[in-house]
């Protein structure tokens, strides 16, 4: 029997502090459950909305090999969305409800997917930069305190590393190609660099949830820490490719042993978060349409399953 006089909240925090994973049926504070459902479903939404900007280029991929890779990659995003919805479902959220929240605009997804993919090089940048940023966010989540989320993330991260590599390979091929290809790569980097930096979320000072999430070990690094890590990782890679990061302030800081870099345009960040990005409307519309047009299919499958079950019951 439990002899301590700790409150359930204190016991819970003690388990978190001891790095014991929380599992679905364990007692947890309501706020912890809510925060997780919000974060995991938001993450899942990002995966499935994220299929659209790249899905856009599957039919236009420049070679059969690239077409296969891109299709497999975008399909993986569907899988990731599925793993994550499943993790959120262990907390009592239904996928239908989560989708309804996405479709109504109540739930958010990563703003990066509200930017358009305009050239083939964008497939490179999305893989190399966007997935690169996602991986930085996601690797620590493999150790997040909630078991099903952590396990889903292990699976996601395993698959995600191929995504970044294929993106880098697309960029590298372009950069080793013709002048037009190299320019395509640079133009794409120019468009994607800043939105990618925004993926890490608002500055720590403007991120009210960070502290509690860190305490619950849902989150293990702050937004600014991850953003810095990303810049430190990517600047040398861009140099390797012979591309220039579109930020004049990027400079190695010997003292900090890190790159200095310019300020993100936070007005743009908040505008896109609030739904005013170029593609917000189209992305959501595409999701709603797929879901609505799929309604009769899902219904038919259920109806058929019920008929079959009834027939089996009669036969038995």
């Amino acid at each position, binding site marked *: *029997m*439990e002899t301590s006089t700790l409150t359930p909240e204190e016991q819970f925090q003690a388990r978190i502090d001891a790095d014991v994973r929380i*599992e679905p*049926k*364990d*007692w947890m504070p309501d706020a912890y459950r809510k925060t997780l459902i919000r974060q995991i479903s938001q993450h899942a939404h990002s995966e499935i909305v994220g299929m659209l900007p790249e899905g856009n280029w599957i039919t236009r991929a420049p070679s059969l090999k690239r077409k296969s890779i891109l299709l497999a990659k975008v*399909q*993986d995003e569907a*899988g990731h969305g*599925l*793993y994550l919805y*499943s993790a959120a*479902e262990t907390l009592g959220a*239904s*996928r*239908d409800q989560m989708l*309804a929240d996405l479709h109504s605009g109540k739930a958010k997804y990563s703003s990066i997917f509200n930017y358009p993919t305009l050239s083939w090089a964008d497939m490179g940048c999305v893989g190399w930069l966007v997935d690169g940023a996602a991986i930085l966010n996601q690797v620590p989540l493999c150790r997040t305190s909630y078991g099903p989320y952590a*396990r*889903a993330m292990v*699976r996601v991260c395993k*698959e995600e590393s191929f995504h970044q590599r294929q993106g880098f390979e697309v960029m590298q091929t372009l950069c080793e190609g013709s002048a037009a290809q190299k320019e395509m790569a640079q133009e794409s980097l120019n468009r994607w660099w800043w939105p990618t930096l925004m993926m890490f979320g608002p500055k720590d000072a403007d991120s009210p949830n960070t502290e509690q999430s860190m305490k619950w070990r849902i989150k293990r690094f702050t937004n600014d820490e991850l953003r810095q890590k990303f810049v430190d990782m990517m600047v040398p890679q861009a140099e390797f490719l012979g591309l220039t990061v579109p930020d004049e302030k990027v400079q190695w800081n010997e003292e900090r042993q890190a790159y200095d870099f310019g300020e993100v345009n936070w007005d743009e960040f908040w505008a896109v978060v609030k739904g005013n990005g170029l593609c917000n409307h189209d992305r959501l519309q595409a999701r709603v349409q797929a*879901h*609505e047009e799929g*309604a009769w299919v*899902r*219904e038919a*499958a*259920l109806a*058929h*399953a019920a008929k*079959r*079950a009834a027939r089996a019951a009669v036969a038995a």
Partner: protein
Amino acid sequence: MNQQEWPLWEVFIRSKQGLDHKHVGSLHAADAVMAVQNARDVYTRRLEGVSIWVVESKHIHASNPDEAAEFFDPAADKVYRHPTFYDVPDSIKHM
């Protein structure tokens, strides 16, 4: 949308012959046949498995975490159940 959702299924995969099926996650499917196929399409895209089990999530009965203490702690002091509890003279082989 007010229609009913496809039921939730838990998926277990045998990664290779000789190993146990292991829980890998869950998915939605209208019936068992579809659940197995969906599991194949979702969870074995990278040669992760050679066999699949699915069970509708509602059929899983689980122990209660609140009873974890009386369920599992009593095993903790039965050290004699483990081979390391016993000192075997060095000269004795094959034990």
